[in-house]
């Protein structure tokens, strides 16, 4: 069964810490995405990548960066975590042939 795996289901970090969220897919997909999901706001796109070492900003990139050194891995980095980054973070991938995202199970991040 094809999979997108996020490294942690739950994380608690302190304000100011640098936080790494890891995402790995085993489907050889070209396109990968990071979203955050908040009640009443839905899923909002943070960053996406169409290929190794390529990245593009989504709708809310401030306070985040990403890294894609290998095709299967897409990392989201919170440079200096703040309480307003407490959220559910979802990684997704899709092939260029299309046909719907495959999402990971999500990482619920709490910044205290």
């Amino acid at each position, binding site marked *: 069964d094809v999979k*997108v795996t996020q490294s942690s289901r739950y994380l608690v970090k302190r304000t100011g810490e640098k936080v790494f969220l890891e995402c790995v897919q085993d489907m050889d997909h070209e*396109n990968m*995405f990071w*979203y955050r999901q908040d009640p*009443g*706001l*839905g*899923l909002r*796109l943070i960053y*996406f990548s*169409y290929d190794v070492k390529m990245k593009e900003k*989504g709708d809310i990139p401030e306070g985040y960066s990403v890294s894609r050194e290998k095709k299967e891995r897409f990392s989201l980095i919170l440079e200096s975590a703040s309480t307003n980054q407490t959220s559910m973070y*979802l990684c*997704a991938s*899709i*092939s*260029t*042939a*299309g*046909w*719907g*995202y*495959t*999402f*990971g*199970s*999500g990482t*619920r991040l709490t910044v205290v």
Partner: protein
Amino acid sequence: SQKIEQNSEALNIQEGKTATLTCNYTNYSPAYLQWYRQDPGRGPVFLLLIRENEKEKRKERLKVTFDTTLKQSLFHITASQPADSATYLCALDPAGTASKLTFGTGTRLQVTL
């Protein structure tokens, strides 16, 4: 500005009935529209995709319609079961290249016995 609207109020229906969820959008010309199911604490799961030149798409008990004139998609689940209880999200793909999707906030469906 671009906007996707799904009914934020939960939809409660009885087992065996047909559930109908609505997705309205403004200031978009999406090439594709997609529907996802999301269970609490989990990532969304892809259900169906419909193209702008398709009026209707079916998959088992699911049916999706896409009216680009009304700027609306309807998502139907026939013969609803308690296991269908979840939040359902619509998502628009303006480019039709499976690139960036913009999601609605979702409608929660509760199917009771």
